[in-house]
């Protein structure tokens, strides 16, 4: 408990009040709060080494480049990628997916080829693939989920053909909070000659990620969900694939030489980092990932387990509540809960909880096809981070019961 209190003090936002009540922040799956180490790093970069990367010879540029490139080493190590040039910095998971959709698409996807996405994907892992398929005349196929929200892996072999180029799957769904069996999916896909992209926007927060162990071809995530500055993100890509893929955007550091007769491109990873990079933001990934590792490996993990069982028990006890994303094995469910309450609109619930000091999320959670699958217009979602306490979970349940009573009138 002491340890958790100490960690919470590292996150100044957690001490804020809203409407005169202590803030209970349960919208971590959208944006997590930032620790002092990240805020300090941002300030340090803004004051001491604000300069463009790579090119200039002056001292500030040298410092900025060192910060940026050492962050790449740190991310490589964190993901256990084999080569540092497999780590491409982007503005977020969405940008990473779009990069792959364009560049992998240009290199490997032709008319009549197929891409598979799962029914539980975030819009950012659906729409870029729809755009690619439209551009190339390729076919988008969908791997469905069952009533509990589990992927229908039994249907996967039937979807894979010799024309399937890529399967895209969330490591953890941002709606269901279930850890998908990515290793198994990769094995099945690779056996059929199909590559795999993993959307790790939620996965990077809750799981230890080892891209070589997962054996995935691409792994993408955003910084702002894992305690770093907004507008930061990562694309891990297998080197041999990145090398064969053409650039996504042109200009800035991605060039080799520019001639009217033809331009050559920089080697990896600069080939994919066009324009001035987020030089103050990207290096915050380093203290952010250090914080993520600290929280994951410290004793506060036990509190997360308590929160999970407590919330699941309380929600299942209430007959009016329908919880989406259920697993018998609690280790495969993260503390992210989306649900609906009979006769209560999710928007009303979120509005009342807000006035009680609780930040939750209501609506479609950027997953409209999944809402349709479950026949709802939206859901209420509460997503916990390792810095949340059991006490906050108890306050949530009490507040939720009060809100339901208010709405029933």
């Amino acid at each position, binding site marked *: 408990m002491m340890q958790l209190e100490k960690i919470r003090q590292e996150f100044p936002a957690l001490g804020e009040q809203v*409407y005169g009540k202590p803030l209970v922040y349960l919208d971590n799956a959208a944006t997590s709060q930032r620790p002092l180490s990240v805020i300090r790093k941002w300030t340090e970069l803004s004051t001491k080494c604000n300069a463009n990367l790579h090119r200039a010879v002056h001292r500030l540029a040298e410092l900025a480049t060192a910060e940026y490139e050492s962050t790449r080493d740190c991310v490589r190590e964190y993901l256990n990628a084999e080569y540092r040039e497999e780590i491409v910095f982007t503005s977020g998971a969405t940008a990473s997916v779009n990069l792959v959709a364009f560049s992998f698409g240009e290199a490997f996807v032709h008319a009549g080829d197929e891409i598979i996405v799962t029914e539980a994907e975030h819009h950012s892992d659906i729409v870029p693939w729809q755009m690619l398929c439209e551009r190339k005349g390729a076919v988008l196929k969908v791997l469905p989920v069952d009533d509990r929200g589990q992927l229908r892996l039994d249907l996967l072999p039937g979807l894979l053909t010799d024309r399937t180029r890529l399967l895209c799957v969330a490591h953890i769904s941002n709606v269901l909070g279930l850890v998908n069996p990515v290793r198994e999916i990769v094995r099945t896909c690779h056996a059929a000659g199909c590559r795999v992209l993993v959307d790790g926007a939620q996965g990077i927060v809750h799981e230890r990620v080892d891209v070589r162990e997962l054996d995935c071809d691409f792994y993408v995530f955003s910084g702002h969900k894992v305690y770093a500055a907004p507008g930061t993100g990562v694309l891990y890509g297998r080197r041999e694939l990145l090398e064969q893929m053409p650039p996504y955007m042109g200009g800035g550091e991605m060039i080799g030489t520019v001639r009217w007769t033809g331009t050559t491109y920089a080697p990896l990873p600069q080939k994919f980092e066009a324009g001035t990079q987020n030089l103050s933001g990207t290096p915050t990934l380093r203290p952010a990932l250090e914080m993520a590792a600290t929280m994951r490996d410290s004793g506060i993990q036990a509190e997360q387990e308590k929160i999970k069982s407590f919330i699941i028990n309380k929600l299942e006890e209430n007959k009016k509540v329908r919880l989406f994303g259920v697993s018998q094995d609690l280790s495969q469910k993260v503390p992210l809960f989306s649900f609906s309450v009979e006769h*209560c*609109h999710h*928007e*009303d619930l979120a*509005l*009342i909880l*807000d*006035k*009680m000091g609780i930040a939750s999320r*209501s*609506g479609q959670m950027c997953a409209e096809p999944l809402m349709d699958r479950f026949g709802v*217009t939206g859901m209420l979602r509460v997503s916990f981070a390792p810095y949340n306490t059991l006490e906050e979970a108890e306050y949530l349940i009490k507040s939720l019961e009060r809100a339901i009573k*208010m*709405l029933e*009138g």
Partner: protein
Amino acid sequence: MKTLQEAQSEVVEEFSMYDEWLDKYEYLIDLGHNLEPFPEELKTEDRLIKGCQSRVWLDASVENGRIHFRADSDAIITKGIISLLIGVYSGRTAREIAADDFSFVEQLGLRENLSPTRANGLASMIATIRETARQHC
């Protein structure tokens, strides 16, 4: 019938009696529950107010030169807000509604206390009521 100004002051006064926002919500929820039932067959696409996160339907009919509003929403607080609005404007002439500046809504403090997406929804409700009145002028 009360004048438009009287009806507006009454609503502002009643709403300001509650200090706590949770109590204001309770009042809106109450209004929502007591809103006259809305016929299912009127829940059509053209009656849906665009720009709201929850679904809001507004129906207008004219009788003896006066506009009668009926409304519904699948979210109860939103339903309370639209109920409050049509309580003030329903049964008035198109000219009277079109000439109003809707500034009483500012005095309720709703806009600042709703999230941006919901404040947009409120603005859409007001725009629809105003536009309906203009069409009948």
